[in-house]
């Protein structure tokens, strides 16, 4: 039977790829839908409130209700709008966000990789730079001032932060010596050192730029600022609004997945080379068991019988799943996908966390951060990385490389901080106003 499967894969490569694409698309849609719920729930818990509680137990069916509502709502096209552009703009956003997932490796086996382009990184940068059109064209086509201004700002923000993000990616490229995302992870595996440890500064730059590129707090002023109503999608309603929403959350998942692949070792277990930490391999069933326990605990306290039994069923299901996962063959098989998702979720959680924590940047401050801090830092990081790699020569020792990179990163950070922070532009303004 196993041989039959292999035969099938060899005979119909396109069909297999199509099946993989459909699976990834479905899973991703689910993740995005529940990401919205998770955001509302996590924010609620951070803010001493409950969040959605009405649809299903703890609002677990809220995404379905939201989706249904948005689907059934009237699709309004404003008067004087450029109809065609107005209609395709959200589609561009969504397509650009989803397409990139074609090259993300979810695990080492070919079953978990849709395609391994040898210019995968370039593909990622290229396609994700297309999402900007959904924003600009959508804002323009609405024939309204708020969306136009919102889209212009948004576009300026995206363009500005793409530069440092790209340069941070080039740093990874230098270290890993490949443009293929699979090879980048494999390089981290063989060197036993995640790129995060070689490129801490690069990771930081990438993370900040990623938050800015997804228009999330604290860089969410194109859409959330009370002054601009909702930014570029003000005039959108119903399903097309849902598409924009989906695009935003998909790109959040996307940048998290990219950060994991580029810096956090993709599907690798943390400290995979340290034998003393092998017990971590048992984390998948254990975490499933924990989920089962928590769900069961809450199920007991749920007053609605239907919800109670549903939760009990969920708990039982995860317990059974934990049992299945605990089988030795399965446990090694699920390792990569488990660690990949775990890391992606950790980063997504961080996205929500920022939103609960940070105030919003002002527009000029946002540009300031991008152009005066991130770009010099990214440039310096690039140069320092190249220098260290040249100095270390081929096949340097792991520790030597780590410490050299650390020192270089620190030096770059200090130099840039001194150069840029030497005199902030606000100081002069204050002196002018206070006369001191």
């Amino acid at each position, binding site marked *: 039977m196993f041989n039959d499967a292999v035969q099938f894969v060899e005979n119909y490569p396109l069909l297999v790829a199509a099946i993989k694409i459909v699976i990834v698309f479905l899973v991703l849609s689910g993740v995005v839908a529940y990401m919205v719920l998770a955001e509302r729930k996590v924010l609620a818990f951070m803010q001493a409130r409950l969040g959605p509680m009405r649809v299903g137990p703890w609002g677990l069916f809220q995404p379905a209700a939201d989706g249904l509502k948005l689907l059934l709502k009237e699709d309004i096209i404003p008067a004087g709008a450029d109809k065609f552009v107005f209609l395709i703009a959200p589609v561009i956003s969504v397509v650009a966000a989803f397409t990139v997932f074609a090259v993300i490796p979810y695990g080492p086996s070919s079953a978990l990789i849709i395609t391994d382009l040898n210019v995968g990184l370039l593909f990622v940068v290229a396609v994700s730079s297309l999402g900007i059109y959904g924003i600009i064209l959508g804002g323009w086509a609405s024939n309204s001032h708020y969306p136009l201004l919102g889209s212009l700002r948004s576009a300026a923000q995206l363009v500005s932060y793409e530069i440092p993000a790209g340069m941070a990616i080039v740093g990874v490229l230098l270290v890993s010596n490949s443009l293929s995302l699979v090879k980048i992870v494999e390089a981290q595996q063989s060197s036993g050192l995640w790129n995060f440890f070689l490129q801490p500064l690069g990771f930081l730059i990438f993370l900040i730029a990623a938050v800015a590129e997804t228009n999330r707090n*604290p860089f969410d002023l194109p859409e959330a*600022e009370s002054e601009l109503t909702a930014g570029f999608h003000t005039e959108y309603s119903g399903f097309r609004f849902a598409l924009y929403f989906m695009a935003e959350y998909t790109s959040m998942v996307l940048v998290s997945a990219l950060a994991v692949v580029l810096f956090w070792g993709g599907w690798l277990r943390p400290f995979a080379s340290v034998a003393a930490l092998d017990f971590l391999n048992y984390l998948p069933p254990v975490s499933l068991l924990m989920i089962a326990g928590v769900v069961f605990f809450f199920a007991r306290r749920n007053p609605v019988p239907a919800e109670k039994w549903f939760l009990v069923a969920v708990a039982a299901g995860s317990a059974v799943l934990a049992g299945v996962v605990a089988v030795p063959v399965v446990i090694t098989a699920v390792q990569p996908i488990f660690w990949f998702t775990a890391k992606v979720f950790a980063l997504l959680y961080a996205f929500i966390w920022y939103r609960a924590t940070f*105030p919003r940047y002002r527009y000029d401050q946002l540009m300031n951060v991008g152009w005066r801090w991130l770009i010099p830092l990214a440039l310096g990081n690039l140069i320092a990385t190249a220098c260290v790699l040249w100095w270390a020569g081929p096949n340097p020792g792991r520790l030597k490389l780590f410490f050299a990179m650390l020192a270089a990163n620190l030096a770059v950070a200090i130099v840039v901080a001194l150069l840029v922070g030497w005199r902030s532009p606000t100081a002069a303004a204050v002196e002018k106003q206070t006369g001191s």
Partner: protein
Amino acid sequence: MPEVTYLDADELVINMGPQHPATHGVLRVKLKLDGERVTGSECIIGYLHRGIEKIAENRTYQQFAPYVDRMDYVAAVTNGMGYCEAVEKLLGAEIPPRAQYTRMILAELQRIASHLLWLGTHALDLGAMTPVFYTFREREEILRIFENYCGARLTTHAFRIGGLLYDLYDGFEKEVRKFSDMFLGKIDEYEQLLTKNRIWLERTQNVGILKAEDAIAYAVTGPVLRGSGVKWDVRKAQPYEAYDKVEFDVPVGRHEGWGDTYDRYLVRLAEMRQSVRIIRQAVERLESGPIFGKVGKIIKPPAGFEVYHAIESPKGELGYLVVSDGTTHPYRVRVRPPSFVNLQAFDLMARGHLIADVVAIIGTIDIVLGEVDR
């Protein structure tokens, strides 16, 4: 808030409000913009004008007391306190100490509640969405105490001319003590979210700068004045009730001679701590005794008297000018609302700043339109 539309737009006049989430009510601000920079502004008020001062002339002294609660409706207790004291001053009435300390406790609780509301909305305006939920959680505790005391949460009408209508309920002291113990830790919690937050600093520091001399020239009072480094507090300068018998400090901003939005933020936070200090002392000194002074059922002050009485409301100096004509109705009541006076400095603070800062500056003045328009 629409912004620059086209390249050739050199100077642009835009309206912010009266329906705008960040103008804290129905304030309308006309902004003259050069690009995104504010070159001039004009606050247009009156959308909430209800003629409260005029109403006073057709009400007896007691009847008018609930109306003042509707001015600064997020700090009704202090409003009522100011009015009651003004009339008491007109009558020359003495208030028993238990009533005085009760008034002080409730007024300081009200100050905390008002500052909490300010903190939450100010942070929300600047994009930090979490503090508002925390501050409302604590404000709820205060409102619960009010509700237990007088049955109302917002427009309390807690005091009567001459003292108190209700004595404190059982367990009041315990609740207030519990609250003040709990609350200091909560302030630290807010501070953890904001005080050293890099983005918060960038959004508030050097924004809305007000020089001390300008502040004095504009008759700005309250935390806005103290934020500019002027140590002026009516509770210290002209003590009323028993404020001269308790110890507290008057916090001022970080700078000598000027202050920014961040200074005012720090001042208000410090004030909340001082309020807790006052509350603790006042609770210690609560003794049993009468709660109503020697004031008759019918208040009929002699004709031709006129008093001005000011208290330190959460927003600044809240003054009442009450003129009597020998009847049971006041001849004239004139209110000096701190929000209204402080708002005049808005143009000074907003000039030269970016349009996004306007939101921060409106927030930092801490206006309540009910009080501005009356």
